[in-house]
C-alpha cells in the first residue's frame, strides 16, 4: 500500500538525513521505526506527507506518487494520512472538539470551517471517536486544560476523523509516563486493527515497541539497518543500531497488564 523508493533527504546545511530508504508496507500493518536520536526517524515520516520535501526518490501511496503532486492534490492526499505527534501538537487555545474537527479541514470549505459549521455527520463522528478514546465529556474543554495522556487521545481522534488509510505517528509516548505510554500504544494498535490501518510509529522505547507491533525497522544515520520481526532484535542488532551498551535489560520480556485500559478510558 505504501512504498518508499530510494527516498533521500539532504538538508540545506548538507546533512544527509535519509539515504536511499526502501520500504514496503502492506495494508493494515503496524511498523515500529526505531533508531537513535538524529537517525532520521522524524524526517522519514515527514517526507511521506511532505511536511518535509524529500530531495529525491518516490513515495507511492496506493499507486499515487505523492512526491509528484501539486499543492492542491497534495492537500487531498494528506487527508488520507493521519498524523500523531510527540508533544500532541493540539492547538492549545481551541477546544477539544475544535481540535478533533480540525481533522476534517481537508474535506470542508473555508467558510464552513471558519464559522465551525461542520456537517452533522462530522460532528457525530467526532463524538463517536471522543467516546471511543474516553473523552466525550471533555468536548468543550480547552485543549490546554487536559493532562498529557488525555491530550494524546485527542490527537489520536483528530488523526482518525480524517478517515485515513495510514497513520504517521511521531514518538507518541515520549512525553508520557510509562503506564500512560502503554495505554496510548495499545489504543493506537487496537484502533489500527479495528479499522485495518497501516501505521508507522517512531518510537524510542524498544521494549514498548516489541510489546505491540508486528514489524520493526531500525534506522541508523538515515539508512535502514534492520527490518524484521520484533523478537529478532538481538543484542548484536541493537548494538548495530544504537552503539555499544548492555542490552539484556532492555529486551527482557515485560509483563503486560491488561487491567489498566479500563482505568485509562475513564481517566
Amino acid at each position, binding site marked *: 500500500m505504501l512504498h518508499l523508493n530510494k527516498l533521500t533527504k539532504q538538508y540545506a546545511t548538507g546533512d544527509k538525513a535519509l539515504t536511499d530508504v526502501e520500504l514496503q508496507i502492506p495494508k493494515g500493518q503496524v511498523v515500529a521505526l526505531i533508531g537513535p536520536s538524529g537517525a532520521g526517524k522524524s524526517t522519514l515520516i515527514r517526507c511521506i*506527507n511532505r*511536511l518535509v520535501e524529500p530531495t529525491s526518490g518516490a513515495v507511492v501511496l496506493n499507486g499515487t506518487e505523492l512526491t509528484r503532486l501539486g499543492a492542491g492534490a497534495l*492537500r*487531498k*492526499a*494528506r*487527508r488520507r*494520512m493521519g*498524523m500523531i*505527534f*510527540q*508533544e500532541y*501538537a*493540539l*492547538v*492549545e*487555545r*481551541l477546544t477539544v472538539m*475544535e481540535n478533533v474537527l*480540525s*481533522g*476534517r*479541514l*481537508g*474535506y470542508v470549505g*473555508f467558510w464552513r*470551517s*471558519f464559522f465551525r459549521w461542520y456537517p452533522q455527520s462530522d460532528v457525530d463522528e467526532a463524538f463517536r471517536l471522543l467516546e471511543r478514546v474516553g473523552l466525550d465529556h471533555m468536548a468543550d474543554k480547552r485543549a490546554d486544560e487536559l493532562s498529557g495522556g488525555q491530550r494524546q487521545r485527542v*490527537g489520536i481522534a*483528530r488523526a482518525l476523523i*480524517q478517515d485515513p488509510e495510514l497513520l*504517521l505517528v511521531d514518538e507518541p509516548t515520549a512525553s508520557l509516563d510509562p503506564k500512560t505510554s502503554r495505554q496510548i500504544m495499545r489504543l493506537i494498535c487496537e484502533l489500527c486493527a479495528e479499522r485495518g490501518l497501516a501505521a508507522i510509529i517512531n518510537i524510542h522505547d524498544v521494549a514498548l515497541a516489541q510489546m505491540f507491533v508486528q514489524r520493526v525497522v531500525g534506522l541508523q544515520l538515515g539508512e535502514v539497518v534492520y527490518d524484521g520481526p520484533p523478537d529478532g532484535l538481538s543484542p548484536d542488532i541493537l548494538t548495530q543500531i544504537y552503539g555499544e551498551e548492555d542490552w539484556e535489560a532492555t529486551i527482557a520480556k515485560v509483563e503486560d497488564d491488561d487491567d489498566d485500559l479500563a482505568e485509562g478510558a475513564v481517566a
Partner: protein
Amino acid sequence: MSAVLASERRKWRKPPFIRNPLARWGLIVFALVYLVLAIGTMEVNWARVYEGLERGKQFILAFSHPDFASRWSDISAGMIESIIMTITSTAAGIIISIPIGLGAARNIAPLPVYYLCRGIIAVSRALHEIIVAILLVAIFGFGPLAGFLTLSFATIGFLAKLLAEDIESTDRSQSEAVKATGASWLQWINYGIQPQVMPRLIGLSMYRLDINFRESAILGLVGAGGIGATLNTAFDRYEFDTAAAIIVIIIVVVMALEYLSGMIRARLQ
C-alpha cells in the same frame, strides 16, 4: 580545617564587560569629561526662566480651578472629533495591519512578500506621526481627515510589526499538525496560527487605541483636528483654565482606556 583550606581557596570575580583595563577606565573618564563639558555648553537665560516661572505657576494653579464651562461647546466638539478620529483610525489600522503582519512573518510568508511587507512597516515606523501629519495637512487641508489618515498609517507600523513578531514566535508543531490534516492556507492560518496570536493581537489593539487617543491630542497642534486643536487655541489665548480643563479630560479618558484595556487583557489568555 578551614585554616588549611584558606590558602587554597580560589578567588572569583565576575569578568568585566570590557577586558582591557586601559580601555575600560579610559571610557569611564571620557564619559565623565564629556558630561561636564556638555553641561557647560548649555545656555540658560536665568532671567527668562524667572519670568517663565510665574507663567508656569499660573498654568499649574489653573488646575485648581479648571474652567470647563466658558468654552464647553469648543471642548465637546474637539473631544467628539478626537474620539471619532481615534476609533476610526484604530479600526482601519487593525484591518490593514493584519494582512501586512501575516506577510511580514518570515515563517509563513514567501520571501518577496516578506520584504514588501517589512518595507511598508519600515516606512511607517521611520516617519514620526507629526511629520506625516504635517504632510497630510498640506495635502488634505486642516481637519480631522488628515489626523485619521496619520493615525491609521502609524498604527500599521506598530501593529503589523508586533503581530508579525508574535506570529514568528508561535509554536510550530501546532500549525504543522493543522497543515498535516490537508488544510488550505486560509484554514491553516485560522486554525493553526490565529488561536495562538489572538490574545496578543487584542491586547496590542487596545494599547494602540490608547496611544492613538493621546496622539490625537498632539496632532491638533499641527492642524490635524481633534481636541489638540482646541487645546492649542486655549494656549494661544492664554486661557490656562480652559487648557487645564482639556488636559484633565484627556487624562481621565486615557486612564479610563488604560483600565478598560487592562480588564480586557486579564480576561483573555
